[in-house]
């Protein structure tokens, strides 16, 4: 029996992220959420930050590196980037960072849509199991979990994290 860590509420994690984003570094940056979980987080951040610019969303289905193994993924909502990315500071948002492959795919898609001045990475949780040199710039919670344990964001209403154990590891 492993000890499954308790996770703080999404609300408290969001508050911490909002505090970090209310600095000069991020004042002129645009929010882009990765569907689905990151898009839900972006909507909450947008409510709290009240930015004039509407947020963008990214669907990485066509940029995944595991197509040959898992095939086409179901629709999660499509990409919407209602602004030019050229010379823009992008805050890329996801709910959980694990292997880093999702972030790599999202960055590839961002750079197919423009040439951002800077990309910052924000996540509510970063867990161990990185497979790429990708780390969040802002992340209020870092977790150490067993390989078969996964953090899942339930939502969109209400948002809550749960830790699930998978019997069989996905490829």
């Amino acid at each position, binding site marked *: 029996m492993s000890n499954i860590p308790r996770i703080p509420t999404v609300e408290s994690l969001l508050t911490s992220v909002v505090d970090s984003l209310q600095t000069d570094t991020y004042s002129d940056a645009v929010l882009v959420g990765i569907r689905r979980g990151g898009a839900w987080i972006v909507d909450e951040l947008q409510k709290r930050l009240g930015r004039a610019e509407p947020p963008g969303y990214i669907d990485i289905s*066509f940029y995944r590196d595991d197509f040959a193994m898992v*095939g086409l993924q179901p629709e999660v909502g499509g990409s919407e980037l209602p602004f030019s990315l050229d010379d823009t500071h992008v805050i890329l948002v996801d709910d959980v960072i694990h292997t880093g492959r999702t972030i790599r795919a999202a960055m590839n898609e961002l750079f197919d849509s423009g040439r951002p001045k800077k990309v910052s990475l924000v996540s509510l949780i970063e867990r161990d199991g990185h497979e790429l040199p990708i780390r969040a710039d802002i992340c209020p919670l870092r977790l150490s979990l067993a390989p078969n344990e996964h953090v899942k964001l339930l939502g969109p209403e209400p948002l809550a994290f749960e830790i699930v154990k998978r019997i069989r590891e996905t490829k």
Partner: protein
Amino acid sequence: MSSSGLRDSHIQLNEDGSLRHFLTIDGLSQSLLTEIMETAERFIDFGQRKIKKAPLLRGYTIVNLFFEPSTRTRTTFEIAAKRLSADVINLSAQRSSTSKGETLLDTARNLQAMHADMLIVRDSHAGAAHLIATHLNNQLQVVNAGDGRHAHPTQAMLDMFTIRQHKPDFSKLAVAIVGDVLHSRVARSQIQALVILGVPDIRVIGPNTLIPTDVESLGVTAHTSMDTGLDNVDVVIMLRLQRERMTGQLIASEQEYFKTWGLTEERMAAANKDAIVMHPGPINRGLEISSSMADSSKSLILPQVTNGIAIRMSVLSMVMSGAEGAGE
């Protein structure tokens, strides 16, 4: 219109019902046709992007194997494959070894030996794509880009997709298909798709010589008068007069044909006010359709071409996704 006996559905589907080849509309489920259109929806904005590509099929080799002339279909398949980052090889009959006597299957086996992942096949013989899929089963994916008079499933799907953009509820539609139904693989695939999607009123209109005698067994009504056939329809699909496939005198003269079955703005007055006009191309101006009708705001001929790219991206990604080894 006798069925050619090609019941491809069992070979074009995996056990879980996903596509592994795309050979015909016949026998596919409504949910699968809807999935093809919904996946195409996800690709529709790619054309407006700065970089019109996604890496989904990077590393895959797709061969356009065309034994019949084609501009639109071949080009849009090529664009679709390239937008998905696949490598595309174009082979046409004029410069292939088939003119030296090699059979279709030998050509396909050679391409397989070169590690092609998918063949997109157009041939003047019904069943050509089916033949390749059967004999090279599970080792490469096959997409039918038109086989004889049999089927042209991606054309039918892009037409359904275009209709859906303007008339989302198929269960309320009256659709007329006008012209050379006899020689048209497009019409066969369209009729099958319309029936599967639940369109209650499907009509074919044309001279007796160009309407197959048993057409009504497909679930359509046949009309020889444009005025009654177009009465209150929502969608008019014109077909090209396929003079190259005609043997014998099937129409009196081109002038006579246009006078009786050509689509003009005056004739369109019989259709519903917001009816749309489609044509799979290439259009013969002044033969099936008047120039002003083809260029009118009701005409969706060019949006059909654009939609063809999204539908073909959808089919290529779904078929490749259904390849052996994917999704397991």
